[in-house]
């Protein structure tokens, strides 16, 4: 009784439970040993197929690709949470002391502060009124509203054209 094709295949694939039985048969049967060696040769031939080279690098899209947004490491986010918790606890602990200390601090009344600010302001105004402004140079030609309007229009057009030139690449 010779070995079946399935048995030979499973034996070479290391997927059989009766290795010992198959091996003892192979040692005594030349025909089955020859069939095994043919199959082995086929395996070797399949696996000898050389690898083909790529014509382009597949890495290129990743060097041009915008990077993923970096994630903060967990220890950092944990630190932030801990600090916040610490601050809340500190605030709760400190609250009674602060309330006790507050009346002891002397605060100027709001009215006084306001009066002080106002006197300061009037003093500044006095100084300002005393300053003599230099005389403006006289313009030899008559400015009409027509001139002003046309200048405004020209400047607006220039501004639009200039911006258009600057942004033309982004618009494309």
């Amino acid at each position, binding site marked *: 009784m010779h070995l079946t*094709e*399935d048995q030979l*295949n*499973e034996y070479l*694939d290391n*997927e059989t439970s009766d290795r010992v039985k198959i091996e003892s048969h192979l040692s005594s049967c030349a025909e089955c040993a020859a069939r095994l060696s*043919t*199959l082995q040769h*086929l*395996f070797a*031939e*399949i*696996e*000898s*197929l*050389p*690898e*083909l*080279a*790529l*014509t*382009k*690098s*597949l*890495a*290129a*899209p*990743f*060097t041009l*690709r*915008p*990077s*993923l*947004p*970096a*994630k903060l490491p967990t220890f950092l986010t944990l630190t932030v949470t801990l600090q916040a918790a610490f601050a809340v606890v500190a605030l709760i602990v400190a609250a009674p002391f602060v309330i006790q200390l507050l009346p002891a601090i002397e605060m100027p009344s709001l009215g006084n502060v306001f009066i002080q600010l106002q006197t300061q302001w009037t003093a500044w105004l006095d100084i300002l009124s005393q300053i003599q402004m230099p005389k403006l140079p006289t313009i030899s030609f008559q400015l009409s509203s027509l001139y002003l309007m046309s200048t405004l229009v020209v400047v607006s057009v220039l501004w639009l054209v200039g911006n258009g030139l600057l942004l033309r690449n982004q618009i494309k």
Partner: protein
Amino acid sequence: MYCGYKAYFHYPATFSPRLLYYTLAMIPLTDRDLILQARRGEAQAFGELVTRYQTSVFNICYRILHERGEAEDLAQESFIRAYDRIHTFDIEREFGPWVRRVAVNLCLNHLDSQKVTVELDDERDADSAQLPEAVQEVKERSEQIHHALASLPAQYRVIIELRHYQEMSYEEIAAQLNIPLSDVKSHLFRARKILAEKLHASD
């Protein structure tokens, strides 16, 4: 070899003493280091991983599809998928087998969506005139193997790929293809029989 210096100068925000040591000592970064960098958002580090595995991934696609253009597209797609899922990748596992499995799955989906036999591309026939005789013989034999593989039905080709090139066990193949173990065996043995017939006929 990519030694991390590029990443160091481009992304000073992710400074680490380990990276600096590797840079100064010119030690190539491990896959694990590169994955960690890619997770921090450094696409360039992933580019280095792609450079390391692109040939093997492309060849899987090529052996299954037998069409260069499609194989290159699917290999590219495999790496894009892997990059998008880099945060879910288990860092304790190896990157190579993982990305190869992504490629196999993509090829299977592609075959399912196509359901047509693909034309054989004659690339391996080009430039064979000037080669020495021994090299020529090896080349001719590998062409015969290649043609024999290409003539197999797609599901047989996939099983040959998984068993002989990815070295998966019967059970792993059954799980990957979601078919019974008995089908794995019958398809695999049948595929080998066809290959043997074709190759012996051409001897």
